[in-house]
Every structure is written in C-alpha cells, then in structure tokens.
C-alpha cells in the first residue's frame, strides 16, 4: 500500500491541507505546532475510525461549525486506487464514501456509509475486526499492524508491548504470509519459484491437472486416446480373426470326428446289408433247393409208383392166369356136370318118357342155351365195365395231373406277375433316380443362380466402395495438401515456444517490484521515456515529472545521455536476458518460420493442423474400413466366374427336361432334403439293386416252374392219349361205357334170373315126372348149377383180374409216359446245382433283418447329414477366414499395443514428474508455513540483525515471541527486558520493528517525530535504513527537523520527497496566524 494524496478540512486546528505523497521516502516537515501530528491523526482517522464514532468529536474544528473532513487516496498492492472520504459529525452530518479507480482519475463508488469501514478493513487486512458486533471495537481500533504502520507519536513504544495474538485472523494471516517471503532464503525462494513454475505448468489453481493446449498431458493423453480407440478396433479385428480361426479349427475337428462316425456307420450299414443279402440269398436259394428236391421226389415217387404198378401188373397177370385156369377147370366141371345132367336127363326121360317131356326137355335145353348165352353176355359186359373203370381211373389220373399243372401254372403266373411288378419297380427306381438327379441339379442351379446374383451384387457393392474409397482418398489428399500448406510446427515445438514465452513472462514478472523516477529538468529538454520496454513517449519542457514502471525505465536525451533503470536483482535480470535471447533464437525464429504473429497464432496454427491431421486420420480409418469391406467382398466377387460357369453347366444339364415338373417335384421335396441327398441316392441305388436281384431270382423260379409244368403237361397229354384210345375202343366215354356195362349187367342178371326161374319151373316139372331120375337129375343139375356158378364166379374173377390188370397196365403206361417226360438225372443235377449254390453262398455271422439294415442306414443317413453340415460349416469357416486379418491383425494389434504402452509410460513419467513437483512445492510450502507461523522466528532475525547494526553490536539480537511481542533483547548472550532500555533505545527498537513489519507487508509506514531522542550516530544509521527501506516501501516521516534527512536527499534528490507543510497548510486557530 502506498499513500498518494491526503486532503484534510476542518480537522481540529487544520482548516485545510492537501498533500501529494510520492513513492519511497516522504519527509513532511514543518515547525512545531504546525499540525503535523494532526495530519497523521487525520490519516489514521480516514483509514480506521468510523465517521459516526463518538471519538470523532475530538476532531471538531477549533473554529467554526464545520464538519471535520478527511480524504485519503492510496494505491493497493494490485495497482488499484482507492479514495476514502469521511466527514465526522453527529447523525446525518457524518458521511463516508469509498471510491475505486484504475488510473486515479476516473472513480467509481465502492462503498458508502457504514459499509465503508467494513470494506476498508477487509481491504487492509490488518487484523481489525469489522465495525459493530461483539468483536467490533468502539473508537479508534488498535490492532498490531495498524499500530506498527500508523502508530501515534505519543505511543511510539506501544508496539513493544503489543501482541498480534488478539487481533482478527486476517491480520495474523497476512503478516504470516508476508513474513514467509520476507524471511525467505534466496535459494529457497529460487527452488520454490521453480517448483511453483513447474506445478503451474501442469496444474490449475485448483490443483487439477491442466487439460488445455499448453498442458504437457494434452498431447500424450490425446495420443493415448487415439491409440486406445485404434487398439479397440484392432482388438475387435483380432477377436473376429481368432473367432474365425477357432471356427476353422473346430469345424475341422468336428468334421474329422464325423468322418470317423460316418466310416463306422457306413461299415455298420455294409455289415447289415451283407448280412441281410446273405440271409436273403440263402433263403431264396434254399427255396430253389426245396423246389428241386420236390421235383426229384416227385420223379422218385413216379418211379416208385411205376415199379409198384409194374409189380401189381405182373401180379395181376398172374392172377388172370390163375383165374383163367380156375375158369377152365370150372368149365370142365360144368361140362362134366352137363354130361352128368344129360345122363340124369336120359334117366329122367326114361322115367318120364312122352312128348311133354320131350317138350320140356327142349324148352329146358333152350333155356339153358339162353343161360349160357347170357353168361357169355355178362362176361362181355363185365369186361366192358372193367375197361370203363380202367378208363375212368386213367381219366382221374389225367385230371390229377392237370390239376397239378393248373397249380404250377398258377405259381408261374404269380411269378410272372412278380417279375412284371419287379420290372416296373426297377423302372420306377430308375425314373426316381433321374428325377432326383434333376431336382438336385435344379436346386443347385437355383442356388448357383442366387450365388451369382449375390456375387453380382457384391461386385456392384465393391465398385461402389471403390468409388467411395477414391473420393475419400481425394478428400484425404486435399486435407494433406492443406496440412502441408499450413506449415504447422510440431506439438513439441509449439510447447517449447509456449514454455519459452511463459518462462520469459515469469522472468520478466520476477523483475517487477516498482520503479519510480522523478525527472526534474533544470532546463527545457526533450526526453524520450520508455516504461517497461513499451513504446517511448516524449516529455517536453522543464516540468518535473514522476515516472513509474514495474521493471524498467529508459530515459534518453538525445545527444546528452541515455539512462536505463532496471528493477530486480542481477540474477533475475540475467535470467530474463537469457530467456529473451533464447526467445530470439528459438521462439521468434519459429514464429517467423511459420509466419505466426504471436504464440496464440502459432497455437492456432498448430490447432488447425492438428485438426487437419485428426481429420486425415479419421478419414484414413474410414478408408481402411471401406477397404476392409471391399476386401471382404473380394472372394465373393472373385468367385463370380466360377459360379456362372457352374450355373451354365447345371442349365446345360437340365436342357430338354420338363423344368416345370422338376420345379414341382422340388417344391414337393420335404424340408431338409438336401441334407439327405447322399443317403437318398444310396437308398435309391439299394432299391434298384434289390429289385434287380429279386427280378433275377423270380425269373429263375419262373424258368424252374415252366420246366416243371412242361413235365406235368406231357404226362397229362400221355394220359389223355390213352384215355382217348380207350374211349375210342369203348366207343363212348368211359362214364357212358361204365353206365352201359352196368345197365347190361343188370339186364343180363335179370334175364339170367328169369331163365333160371324158367329152368327151375321146368325142373320142378321134371321132378314131378321122374322120381328116381329126378334126384339124379337134380343132383346133376345141382352139380351143373354149382359148376356153372363156380364157372361164372371164375369167369367174373377172370374178368375182374383182367380188368384190374388192364387198369394197372393203363396206369402203368400213363406213369411210364409221365416218367418219359421228365429226367430224374436232370432233376437231381438241378437239385445238386441248387445245393452247391446254397453251399457256396456265404453264411452271415449273424442273422439280420431288413429292419436292422434300415436302422443302420438311418444312423448312416443322420451322420452323413451331419458330415455334410460340418463340411458346409468348414467351407463357410474357411471362407470366413479369408475375410479376417489373421496373423496380420495380430501383428497390428501388437504394434498398436506397444505404441500405447510407450505413450502410457510417457504419461506415467509425466504424471510422476508432475506429482513430484507438486509434492516438492507443497512440502516446501508446508515447511515454510510451519516456520513462518512462528512470526517471531520469521521476523526476529531481521529485526535482531538491524538492531545489532544500529547499536554497533551492543545488542546481539531481539527475542520476539510467536505473536511478535518483544520479550527481551540479547546483550552479551543474555536476555534483557526492554523496559530496562533507555527511552531513546526503546524508540529506536520500536522504529526498527515497525520498519521491518512495513517492509514485510510491502506497506507504507508513517513515522511521526519518532527519533527525537536519538543521537546523531544512530540517526545516521536510521537515515540510511529509511532510504534503504524506501526502495521497497513508502515511508512517510513527519518531522520538525528536516535537515536530519536532508544530507543524502540533497546528494541524491530522487532519494526522498521533501515536503514543506507550512505553505500547504491553512490553520483554523489563532495560533495559525502566528505561523
């Protein structure tokens, strides 16, 4: 803080006074009772006393009813002007305003009334509580800092007893912070400054990491972000690639497993088929064997029957012979009986004699003759009957053979029917196979057509992508051209330039501290004045001017002199110069190289270039995606000629076929039929094979039956021939012949009976005639009858034997004719062949049925479907692998991963570095705070050293407690209470302390006749000390002995502002007139 202007009106004895105060030492002098202390009091009142305070009554002007008024203008540490104006009066007469200004000319009201003091106390931060309230003081507040800076003349030593302990916190805090810098070792300060600069480069004021353009994290974070995005994309590619690779591997393994399964299933089907074929073949062969065996057996039975019939025929022949012999004997006995009867008749005739008798005898002889004729006819009828019976027997045999032939024909017809059926089946299977092949070809064709369409669409898409890629490349080319034209520097270069500029600003700022030069030309001059390196302004004339700057002031009087005043210590100046040179070498060169006006323009250039580079990168990524998509389409497009060729082949294959019918058949195909093409084809082939085998077997059986039928038909033919011969011989059919013979026999028997009864009547007549001869006659007749009966019986037996013989002979002939039709040797040979075939047929290891075979085929069909699916999966996986990155994706992922790791390590190092700088700065601050919180320790060394210098080493130091209360002074190594010091020494100690506090705070200090009891030697020391202090703070001295301060001021007029108060002050008292 620095006072600029003080205007006092109607304040105690002062009617009006207006003082302008300069930076540095201001010596306000005047004689005693002029009102210097009143002026100091007015200044204190302006800053500290509320306008309504009752204490202000003391300020009542000695003359007139005026309101005391004070106006104080001061500069704060930030360079802003404040003007406080107070009118101390009762009630409404009390006024207060606080104004603020940037230039000391244009003012804005900051506060008014009661708020003025509250605002002021906050602004000063001297540890004075806000007015009013519990902690607020009444009257003029007395805080440690206010006492140190504005202490009253009468209470100059008050500061030695005062403590900051009970003051408001802001005062202690401000002093504590100020003392940190005041007490700092230059090396500590340098280290802290550097650490702070590093922290400021990286962190915001709130301690967060900077994210702006200047942040060192920005580039690396952005690069990491980009790399992470890139890595995610690469990882996605890699995952897709590894997935495709796994799919290929799994498909391959799955196919291998299924191939094994298929092999096993096919083997099982083959075994089952083999077993079934063997079983069926053996069964069919066995049937042929059985058939052949039955044929041989039939022939053997025929032969047996022929043999038996031959034997029977011979026996019957013998029987006929025997019967004929017996008949001959019986006929001889009949002859003998007739001879005996003739003899008896003669006897009887002799006995009966006469004509009647002769008639009877004639009649009887006639009857007997008829009887003999009847016997003959009966024998003939019986012969015919036997022949008819034999013919009937022959007819029955022929019918039996015909019946057998009918049976064989039936079987043969069935076999033919089966053959026809099998042929139709065979044709149907053939047709099915052709249809199935057509359907497959048609379906493949449809698929091929779709694939062709897909591939054509893919080709169109590839062309579109190609165009898009070309456009993108053009855009990228344009952007790259723009980027090249920008001539933008790298991020590192921009960062370096920024850093240089920042460091230069910091270094130049570090030079700051405030310079004030008063120019008082002794004659009219033209002076070129440059402030802080800004453009020069021209000062003309001989007026005194005060020039103020932060870092440098240059004054040039052309042809006379050039004066350059520079703030800051040598090291900082060197540092600033080095940085300026570095800026010239690097920063300015970079700006010139890229044609940027300043760093902001450079940053803007880099930002635009960075944006262009990002746009190029984004478009490049998009281009890569397009290319990947187009590359993914490549195999499909490349496959187009092959697909078209395949489609053409399939179209050719189906040329001339009824496509509508094939399409209909395809639509009727059950779902999933394509998965069963191989089993279906195999099934059709098996059906065809089975039908062909069955057809062959049936044709063999039919041939066998035809041969058998031919034999039976030949037998029938033979029998029919015999039958026709016999029927021809009979002159009628055997049935008619039999019926006729039976009728004849019946009639003959009737006639025989009638003749016999007639003879019996004659005989009874004869009996009556001859008694003696009757008996002989009867006996002879009886014998003749017996002989006739025996002869007739013999006759019948002969006829029977002959008939039986003839029947057997016919039968035998028929059998022989049958036997002549067939060959046993051939039948046996056929049987043996069939048996040999049967033996040659392999015997299955186990019986198997068609159901077993079907079950095995179902398994095979399922496995084949799975194999086909797995093959398709493998083909699909192998196709898919061509669309992924494979090893390339892996390598690119690793490349990006390594780049990311490198950037992350960079980021980690940056963070580590930044955290380390922050830790160092915070630790340093913490250590300093710990040290400076003990205010006495922070200030004690400086105060002690100065007090020691002042006293020529008599007092080695001063013991200040933590609240800056002076405890003792050190004399010869021992502490000594300050109240034991002389008044003058206590004054001096108090002044040293006040100066030190003012210097630490960078604030003005008002010393009102403070060293009145100081000897010349010590005063000289003080004069130097005041001038030294005035280099950094404003010192306002009120004194009646200006000469004490003049020697150096005269030697160096700029070192102090000597202000004679007397002409400036109008006093309101009677005493004023005496001045």
């Amino acid at each position: 803080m620095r006072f600029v202007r003080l205007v006092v009106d109607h304040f105690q004895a002062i009617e009006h006074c207006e003082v302008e105060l300069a930076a540095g030492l201001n010596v306000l002098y005047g004689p005693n009772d002029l009102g210097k202390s009143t002026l100091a009091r007015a200044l204190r009142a302006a800053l500290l006393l509320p306008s309504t305070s009752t204490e202000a009554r003391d300020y009542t002007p000695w003359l007139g009813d005026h309101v005391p008024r004070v106006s104080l203008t001061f500069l704060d540490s930030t360079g802003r002007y404040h003007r406080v104006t107070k009118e101390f009066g009762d009630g409404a007469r009390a006024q207060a305003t606080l104004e603020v200004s940037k230039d000391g000319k244009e003012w804005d009201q900051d506060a008014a009334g009661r708020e003025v003091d509250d605002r002021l106390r906050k602004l000063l931060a001297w540890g004075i509580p806000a007015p009013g309230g519990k902690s607020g003081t009444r009257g003029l507040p007395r805080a440690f800092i206010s006492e140190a800076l504005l202490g009253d003349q009468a209470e100059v030593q008050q500061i030695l007893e005062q403590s900051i302990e009970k003051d408001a916190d802001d005062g202690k805090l401000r002093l504590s912070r100020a003392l940190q810098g005041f007490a700092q070792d230059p090396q500590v300060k340098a280290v802290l400054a550097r650490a702070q600069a590093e922290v400021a480069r990286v962190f915001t004021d709130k301690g967060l990491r900077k994210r702006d353009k200047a942040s060192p994290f920005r580039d690396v974070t952005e690069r990491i972000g980009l790399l992470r995005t890139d890595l995610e994309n690469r990882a996605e590619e890699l995952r897709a690639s590894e997935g495709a690779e796994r799919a290929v591997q799994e498909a391959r393994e799955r196919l291998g497993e299924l191939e094994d399964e298929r092999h096993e299933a096919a083997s099982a089907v083959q075994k089952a088929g083999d077993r079934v074929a063997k079983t069926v073949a053996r069964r069919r062969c066995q049937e042929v064997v059985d058939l052949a065996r039955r044929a041989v057996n039939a022939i053997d039975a025929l032969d047996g029957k022929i043999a038996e019939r031959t034997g029977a025929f011979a026996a019957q022949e013998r029987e006929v012979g025997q019967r004929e012999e017996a008949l001959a004997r019986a006929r001889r006995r009949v002859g003998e009986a007739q001879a005996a009867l003739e003899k008896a008749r003669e006897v009887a005739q002799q006995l009966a004699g006469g004509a009647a008798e002769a008639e009877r005898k004639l009649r009887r002889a006639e009857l007997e003759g008829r009887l003999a004729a009847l016997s003959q006819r009966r024998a003939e009828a019986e012969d015919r009957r036997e022949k008819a019976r034999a013919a009937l027997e022959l007819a029955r045999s022929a019918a039996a053979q015909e019946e057998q032939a009918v049976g064989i024909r039936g079987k043969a017809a069935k076999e033919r029917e089966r053959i026809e059926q099998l042929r139709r089946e065979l044709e149907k299977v053939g047709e099915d196979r052709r249809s199935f092949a057509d359907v497959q070809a048609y379906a493949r064709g449809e698929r091929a057509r779709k694939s062709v369409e897909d591939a054509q669409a893919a080709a169109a898409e590839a062309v579109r992508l190609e165009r898009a890629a070309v456009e993108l490349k053009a855009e990228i080319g344009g952007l790259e051209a723009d980027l090249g034209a920008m001539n933008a520097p790298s991020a590192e270069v921009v960062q370096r330039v920024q850093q240089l500029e920042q460091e230069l600003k910091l270094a130049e700022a570090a030079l700051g501290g405030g310079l004030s030069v008063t120019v008082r030309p002794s004659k009219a001059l033209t002076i070129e004045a440059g402030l802080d390196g800004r453009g020069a302004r021209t000062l003309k004339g001989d007026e005194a001017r005060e020039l103020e700057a932060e870092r440098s002031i240059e004054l040039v009087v052309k042809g006379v002199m050039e004066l350059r005043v520079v703030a800051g210590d040598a090291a900082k100046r060197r540092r600033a110069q080095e940085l300026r040179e570095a800026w010239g070498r690097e920063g300015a060169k970079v700006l010139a190289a890229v044609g940027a006006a300043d760093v902001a323009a450079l940053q803007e250039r880099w930002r635009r270039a960075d944006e262009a580079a990002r746009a190029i990168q984004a478009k490049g990524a998009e281009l890569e995606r397009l290319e990947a998509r187009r590359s993914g389409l490549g195999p499909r497009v490349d496959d187009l000629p092959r697909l078209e060729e395949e489609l053409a082949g399939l179209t050719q294959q189906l040329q001339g076929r009824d496509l509508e019918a094939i399409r209909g058949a395809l639509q009727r195909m059950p779902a999933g039929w394509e998965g069963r093409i191989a089993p279906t084809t195999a099934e059709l082939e098996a059906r065809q094979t089975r039908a062909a085998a069955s057809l062959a077997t049936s044709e063999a059986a039919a041939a066998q039956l035809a041969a058998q039928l031919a034999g039976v038909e030949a037998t029938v033919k033979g029998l029919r021939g015999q039958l026709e011969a016999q029927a021809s011989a009979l002159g009628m059919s055997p049935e008619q012949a039999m019926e006729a013979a039976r009728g004849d026999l019946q009639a003959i028997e009737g006639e025989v009976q009638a003749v016999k009864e007639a003879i019996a009547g004659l005989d009874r007549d004869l009996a009556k005639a001859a008694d003696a001869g009757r008996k002989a006659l009867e006996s002879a007749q009886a014998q003749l009858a017996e002989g006739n009966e025996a002869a007739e019986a013999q006759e019948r037996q002969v006829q029977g034997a002959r008939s039986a013989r003839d029947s057997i002979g016919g039968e035998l002939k028929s059998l022989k004719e049958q036997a002549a039709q067939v060959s046993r040797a051939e039948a046996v040979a056929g049987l043996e062949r069939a048996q040999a075939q049967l033996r040659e047929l392999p015997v299955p290891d186990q019986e198997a049925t068609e159901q077993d075979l079907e079950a095995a085929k179902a398994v095979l069909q399922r496995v084949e479907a799975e194999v086909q699916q797995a093959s398709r999966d493998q083909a699909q996986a192998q196709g898919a692998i061509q669309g992924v990155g494979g090893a390339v994706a892996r390598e690119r992922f690793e490349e990006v991963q390594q780049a990311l790791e490198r950037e992350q390590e960079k980021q980690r190092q940056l963070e580590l570095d930044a955290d380390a700088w922050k830790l160092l700065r915070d630790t340093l601050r913490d250590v300093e705070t710990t040290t400076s919180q003990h205010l006495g320790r922070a200030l004690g060394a400086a105060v002690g050293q100065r007090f020691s210098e002042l006293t020529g080493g008599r007092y080695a130091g001063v013991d200040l407690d933590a609240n800056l209360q002076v405890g003792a002074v050190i004399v010869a190594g021992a502490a000594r209470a300050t109240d034991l010091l002389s008044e003058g020494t206590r004054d001096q100690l108090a002044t040293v302390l006040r100066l030190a506090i003012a210097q630490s705070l960078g604030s003005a200090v008002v010393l009102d006749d403070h060293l009145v009891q100081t000897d010349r030697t010590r005063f000289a020391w003080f004069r130097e000390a005041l001038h030294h202090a005035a280099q950094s703070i404003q010192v306002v001295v009120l004194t009646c002995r200006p000469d004490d301060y003049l020697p150096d001021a005269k030697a160096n007029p700029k070192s102090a502002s000597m202000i004679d108060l007397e002409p400036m002050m109008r006093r309101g008292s009677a005493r004023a007139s005496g001045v």
Partner: protein
Amino acid sequence: MRTEEDDVALKLVHTADWHLGLRFRQFEPEDAVKLRRARLEVVDRILGEAVRYQADAVLCAGDLFDDRQPEDDWWEGLAKILSNPRYAGRPVFLLPGNHDPYVAGSVWDPAHPFRKQLPAHVHVVDRDDFSFPLGEGAVLHAIPCRSLSSSKDQALALPERTPGDERIRIGMVHGSTFDMPDAQTNFPIAQDAVRRRGFDYLAIGDTHGFRIVPPDARPPTVYPGAPEPTKFGEDDAGHVAVVFMTRRRLARVEKVPVARWRWEAVRVTTLDQLRALHARDGLQSRVLKLEVDLVLPPRELQEAERLLRELKGTEAVQGRAGIVQLRQRLELDATDAEALFADLPETLQATARRLQEATGGTGAEVARRALQHLYELARATRSERRD
C-alpha cells in the same frame, strides 16, 4: 575336375517381407522415420547383391508392403529403385503376401499407378496360374495371396511336375509352414509340398528370420526372412538367400547379410554395465531397447545421466547408438539425505527430510522423484548463486 560352381545352371536372389511403410509406432517419430527409410534403402542393397552375384532373377516372396494400400512415398520409392537402369534386364518377381494381398484397389491392382511405373523386367504375380520361364531349362510357378488370412495351402495349389519335364522348377508362395504357430489359418504350407509338387526349390516368405524348413531338406523350402528386422526378438533377420541351382537340379543356399540395422535388447542394472555399453563399438548400427534400472548416489547419477545422454543423443548431438528405445528408472540414492543436503538452507533440509520420510510410504516413487528434483534444483540454484 568340375566344381559345383561350374555346374551352376541358375542363380537366384530370394528375398521377402520388406514391409515397406511399416509405421513403427512404438518408437519416437524421428526414430520411426529412420527405420521406415531403412526398409526402402535395403531394397537397393538387395538388388545390388543380385548384380554382384549375377543372379538370373530376383524372387520377392510377399509382404513387400506392410499394407495393401501403402502411402505413395513407399510405392513411388520402390518403383524408383526398381527402375534404376543398373538393375534392368534381370527379371524381378513381386509376390503379394498376406499383409499386402492382391485385391481390387490394392497397390498390385493393374489400375494402380505403381503398376504403371514398373519397368518391363519387373513382374507382379497377379494370376493363380502364374508361370515364367527362367531361360530354357528352368521355370517359375507362383500364386499370390488374395486375402489377409486363409487356410488354403498355396504351395499344394501349384502345378505338379509332369512326366518327362526335366526343367528346374522353382515355386514361390507366401505363407506359414505347418511348424509355425497359427499356420493353419495363415496360408499354411505343407513341409513336403516342395517334394509333392516336384519343385527343386520352394521360395517362401512370412517368417522374418532366415530358415530352411526343415533344416538340410532337399529339395529345400526357404524363408529368407526380413532384410531389415521389424521388431526386437526376430532371430536371424537381415538377410537374403542367394540360391545356386546345378544342372542336376540340386540347390545350394547362401545366407547373405544386407541389413542396415541390428536390433538388440539390453538391460542395465549397474553403472559398470552402462559404462561398458557406452564404450562398445558399432553402436551406430544398433537399435537398442535399453532398460535402465539404476539408483545411484549423486556423482554417479550425474555420470549415468551423461552416459545415457551420449548414448541416445540430443536434438543437437548425434547419439553413440543409432536408435535407443529407452525405458528407465534412474533415481537418486537419497538414503543419506542428511549428508546430501547438508549445505542447503534449513528450509530445504527440512523439506528433504520430509520427502525422505515419504519414500517409505505409499507414494514412495513420487517422493523419490521429488527428492531428485530438489537435489537437481538445489544444485542448479547453488551454481546460480555462485555465478
């Protein structure tokens, strides 16, 4: 007595895996530029070897570009080298590999300006039935890669030797022999494909180290490897294969070095190791992956910093090593902080003590780095004070 050399009927230079345009993103940009340029420069040396050996042909077995659409610099640079009149008259065969597959829009596309700039003696394998007579007694068969990845065996897709064909048959494909990891999806190549297809030499590319698969195989299947390494750990990279085919169709293979750079990973855990590395000859041609793990007292720390600075170089000064990829933990040994900071103001000493205490806690690394900053700053400000 006739020597095998007298009997040589065909000489070939076989190379692969140039990876032109490889970005080397794991390196600092200026180092990446050096490595990228080296990949183009080595092509010049390879063709120079072909001239020196008077080879009949140069076989380039795939992955010649790192991407199917390389930046213009790379294909333009390659076209320029191939067009050098010094190399004219000797056929050069360029095979698309899995990194730079022959697809529409790629650098191999007949419509690409690269193809238009190629001189007549350079042939791109852009057909699956590519064959080219190498004089009267020899023939080359080759198949290009058409995708980044595939499970198709390109070598077995080459035509078989027909009965009565007594010519020297050379095959060229790009892919992985079945002994390589992930070979099944990276254009797998059966190890006996060379024999099964009746070739006398199978020139392949993909693996970056020189290899004959299997070793001492006759006829041989050969990876020449990348002529410049692409990463650390690539054993035996940096060569081409020079192939001498006799009239009896026997191949003899020479491994000829062509690389500019040798890549080496070094770990340094003692200052002596660092000194020894610094003193080594031939570091200019090295790409060093240097991992430094040192905690040193002040004086040695300064020396280590100097050695590393000299190894790596600065913007103004070329380093002793060609390229250094540095990963370092180079820290101040501040176990005796009292002595280390004894001559500093009390505030700095107290700060050092507190930081020293913090090195035992969770933020030890930060505290150690802060101590190092303090030490360096104290050193700098002390020298400033002296100035």
